[in-house]
């Protein structure tokens, strides 16, 4: 069912880009073998049936939407490298 072709370093670089993680070309090469080992192992799941009924015993937990004191702005910003006028300051959107 899956693409039987194994992943190569280009595929690793593509996934790294999707995941917003810089990897060097050497790193990409080094990840290839482990990726293929793990994805190969995931094929264990191929014959799991698609129509398993999961009993859903979860309930939503709600509370009234009332304002209450929360973390002060200064505290929330304290770990940011840069902030401005009470906001986090991030890189520019190019």
């Amino acid at each position, binding site marked *: 069912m*899956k693409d039987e072709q194994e992943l190569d370093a280009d595929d690793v670089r593509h996934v790294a880009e999707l995941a917003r993680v810089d990897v060097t070309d050497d790193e990409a090469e080094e990840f290839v073998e482990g*990726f293929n080992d793990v994805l190969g192992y995931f094929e*264990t799941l191929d014959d799991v049936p698609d129509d398993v009924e*999961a009993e859903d015993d979860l309930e939503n937990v709600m509370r009234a939407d009332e304002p209450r004191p929360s973390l002060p702005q200064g505290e929330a910003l304290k770990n940011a490298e840069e902030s401005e006028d009470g906001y986090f300051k991030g890189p520019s959107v190019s």
Partner: protein
Amino acid sequence: MSKTEDSLNAFVTRCDLSSGDGALDDLTVGVKDNISTEGVETTCGSDVLEGYVPPYDATAVARLKDAGARIVGKTNMDEFGMGTTTETSAHGPTRNPVDTDYVPGGSSGGSAAAVASGEVDAALGTDTGGSVRCPAAFCGIVGLKPTYGLVSRYGLIAYANSLETIGSMARDVGTTARLLDAIAGADERDGTCNAEAEDYTVAVKDADGALEGKTVAVPEELVGEGVEEGVRERFDAALETLRDEGAEVREVSMPSLEKALAAYYVIAMGEASSNLARFDGVRYGPGGEGDGWNEAFADARARFGDEVKRRVMLGTYALSEGYYGDYYDKAQNARALVRRDFEEVLDGADVVASPTMPLTPFEIGEALDDPLQMYLADVNTTPVNLAGVPSVSVPCGRADDLPVGLQLTAGRFEETKLLSVAREFEKAR
């Protein structure tokens, strides 16, 4: 707060937080470095969170303080909890106090090593796929992964929300129960944590005869070829002890367990890829350089270690269009089957028993180069997290001079029974 060298490298940061009298005021406690401590650096064992000082306490930490426990340090861990050896930490590996050539297990290896060496009386760990029970087994201590929803995750820096729990670790079952007493129970800051806590300390004190007439199920899937000979011998001896104390031991089959490890890793990696998206160097942690938003984020995130990169990337891949049905849907279906198998077996038995780990500790450096080999070591612990049930690792002797753990698992919110049984086993062996 100072960083100090300890020979085991069990601690990332030392501190001394205490607030007076309470049920735990005779205990020193270590707290895993992925659990938020107000005013004390919390790094998750990662360079990505270097310098991060939480502005608030995790609920579990606040409750420990309220109970008078003295928190003396943040313990080392695999980066973001991703590992079975505590070698993927950005702060270097922790060593096993039983034999320093070996790993302490992971990912809560710092907590286990600090407890086993006597450095602290007890510790908090976290268990996503075995991260409390594995290091407890490898270091020869007790480690409890509570039922999902019994202990608040507020302030636990998330890796895989649907699987992970905060757990307690100590040198005996009684102290493990005391720590659970302090941290368990509903918290309005965690919508999944609504359970009423029970008195676990009293249950353990009253454990006399707890094994009499109990039924212990042993899944054949967890005691197969993958279990090392020495571990099997200790496990068989443990079953003999359980029988001597009046329990009936029977072998059962849980076919879904053959799929559990793969399902666990698909789900954990998928959740990790989403959870760890928050680490972009803007709100906390060192920022990245680059010409734009994506470039700067990708640069900041290059600080992740190899194992975290691997899991974030594999999770991204498994959730991407065209592959989601093959991996994530299949894994969720397998998870439902695992849950059903546990429910059925625990309908007819009190606890499920297996070796915690199929092998004794790796040597330092032995498992790092082969990720799949490391994952396979989690085969007995991960099914428990898929099912959300409580599970404890109790020492059951040594093989080749290294500790072996007995894993006991009960039904949801059956911690009093589970800990009583564990206590009776501890006394009898």
